[in-house]
């Protein structure tokens, strides 16, 4: 399905396309100077969540392994970064690859038993992981590193240089915005290349028909546990960035809700869609802010309703809708072909 998508866009790289890209780049660079500090902070979180959701999507959307516990990897990444900066005095940028590598190993190890678990069982096991992590982080034997219930307070990284633009200073939050944006570009570029080649096709084949995939010579155990590792690494990098953005980690910021919100973000953005991660991230960042004004419980209620309604009406999420509308406008013939294949994806898992 994604293969068909690339063919269509590859033939269509008009000057208008590049103009659009340029406009988007300019907008993204100017954006943090148009808004107040707190908004910049929220944008940073959107970018962080986008990486985390992308990580979850690699595993669940593309490879079909259901994880209800990606908050655990996010937490490990965040704590790894926080401990490295707070206890070992590392610079913030150096913690990202280490957090990613650590989460890759952790994810690989989790993925190993996951090989034997399918569908609901994997969901239960990962849900248990998500529930256990806050307790583990409070455990007193590792309190010397993790700071126990209090967590770790960090300093936001200072910008290397400073100036004023449109009346707004280039401060820590705005510097982090550009730093996060650079990481986002890098991670999405990596994911794009990973998923649009041989590996991506193997992952989708495993999701759609594991037996046929095995028969074609795809090594299922290796691919599935490596996917778990890569997915965890993405989410771990997001966690490390998130620790920098919020400048604070504590066990209670990584409850099971975080894992569930990442799942909601993935479903809203679109399963097996790379750009969908941005929609999902914006959704889980901004909808609670708006819904909070109705009631403390409103965000969760909206999430729950939306999860169910989306499953009925729009199982491919925002990106699925965008793609269908776009193709319908472009070429009726392609539009007729694509919904069929995107439905096939959701039916046979």
């Amino acid at each position, binding site marked *: 399905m994604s293969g068909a998508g690339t063919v269509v866009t590859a033939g269509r790289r008009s000057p208008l396309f590049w103009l659009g890209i340029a406009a988007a780049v300019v907008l993204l660079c100017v954006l943090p100077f148009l808004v107040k500090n707190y908004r910049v902070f929220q944008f940073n979180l959107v970018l962080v969540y986008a990486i985390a959701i992308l990580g979850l999507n690699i595993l669940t959307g593309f490879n079909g392994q259901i994880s209800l516990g990606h908050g655990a990897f996010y937490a490990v990444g965040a704590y790894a970064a926080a401990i490295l900066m707070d206890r070992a005095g590392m610079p913030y940028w150096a913690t990202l690859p280490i957090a990613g590598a650590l989460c890759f190993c952790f994810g690989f190890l989790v993925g190993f038993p996951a090989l034997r678990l399918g569908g*609901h*069982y994997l*969901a239960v*096991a990962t849900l248990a992981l998500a529930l*256990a992590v806050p307790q583990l982080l409070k455990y007193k034997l590792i309190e010397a590193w993790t700071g126990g219930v209090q967590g770790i307070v960090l300093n936001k990284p200072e910008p290397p240089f400073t100036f004023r633009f449109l009346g707004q200073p280039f401060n820590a939050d705005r510097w982090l915005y550009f730093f996060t944006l650079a990481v986002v570009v890098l991670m999405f570029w990596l994911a794009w290349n990973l998923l649009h080649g041989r590996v991506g096709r193997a992952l989708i084949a495993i999701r759609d028909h594991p037996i046929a995939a095995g028969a074609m010579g795809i090594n299922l155990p290796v691919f599935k546990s490596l996917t778990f590792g890569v997915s965890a690494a993405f989410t771990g990098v997001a966690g490390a960035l998130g620790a920098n953005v919020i400048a604070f980690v504590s066990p209670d910021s990584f409850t099971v809700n975080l894992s569930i919100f990442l799942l909601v973000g993935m479903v809203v953005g679109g399963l097996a869609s790379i750009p969908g991660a941005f929609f999902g991230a914006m959704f889980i960042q901004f909808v609670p802010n708006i819904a909070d004004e109705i009631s403390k419980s409103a965000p969760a*209620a909206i999430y*729950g309703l939306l999860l*169910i309604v989306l499953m009925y009406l729009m199982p491919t999420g925002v990106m699925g809708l965008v793609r269908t509308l776009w193709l319908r406008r472009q070429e009726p013939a392609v539009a007729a072909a694509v919904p069929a294949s995107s439905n096939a994806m959701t039916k046979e898992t």
Partner: protein
Amino acid sequence: MDGFLHQVFAGLANGCIYGSVALALVMIFQATHHLNFAQGEMATFSTFVAWALIQQGWPYWGAFCATVAVSFLAGLVIQRVILRPVERAPVLTNVNVFIGLLLIFNALSGWLFDHTVKSFPSPFAQESFLKSRFFSAHEMGSFLVMMAVLLALYAFFRFTSLGLAMRAAAQNPDSARLVGIRVSWMLAVGWGLAAAIGAVAGMMVAPVVFLDPNMMAGILLYGFASALLGGVDNPFGAVIGGLIVGVLENLLGAYVIGTELKLTVALVLIVGTLTLMPAGLFGKRLVTRV
């Protein structure tokens, strides 16, 4: 020795609760092969309903029966309205719908009954004949209630024609449909039973852990561990699994690792059971032909 025995019996009392949550999970799994992630939050919501009725001045057992009946109907309606359209959908769709239900019930509990921790009355007076050397009155009482539920379920499945039809629908849906059983409705009754059992479990555990919207999160995890350990398609296995898990949890908590890592114990139990003994202690070993 006395302390040890006390831990074992306290574990058995907890195990009853885990066993009944596991029983509710098995009810739904048997029929649909889905694990209901919303089971805990549904039970919490039922307990809130009972709490509200008692606040209105209802007698305890009146509120108890009304809650069980309401929960049964609610479970039935949820299956008919929400789950039926996705009966044949892929696993991820179902998991998402269950998580959606979990969020909705959690939010509803918080919205309607607010987030403050409430105390829930126990029907068993502290100094009654139920109190013994190793059991408090409430522990003994909830044990007896659970056994009553189990016996009632056994009788229902063994001696009623509806129970027989439900077993047929779970074992061989195609043949059951051919002899005129409305299989889809049997699934709905299974959901209703699960919701009712969950409500009983919620009302029995609420006096111990106090009532708040997140009351069941940890208990549900232990329920999963019990169901998987006992064999996820076997109701009796679920109860035995619950008792084992309850005792294990209490002994480990008291003597080995302390109470701070309770959820990690559940995690290890779940992953361990699933990887080493996927069929559980009493479950059927499933062989799929490809």
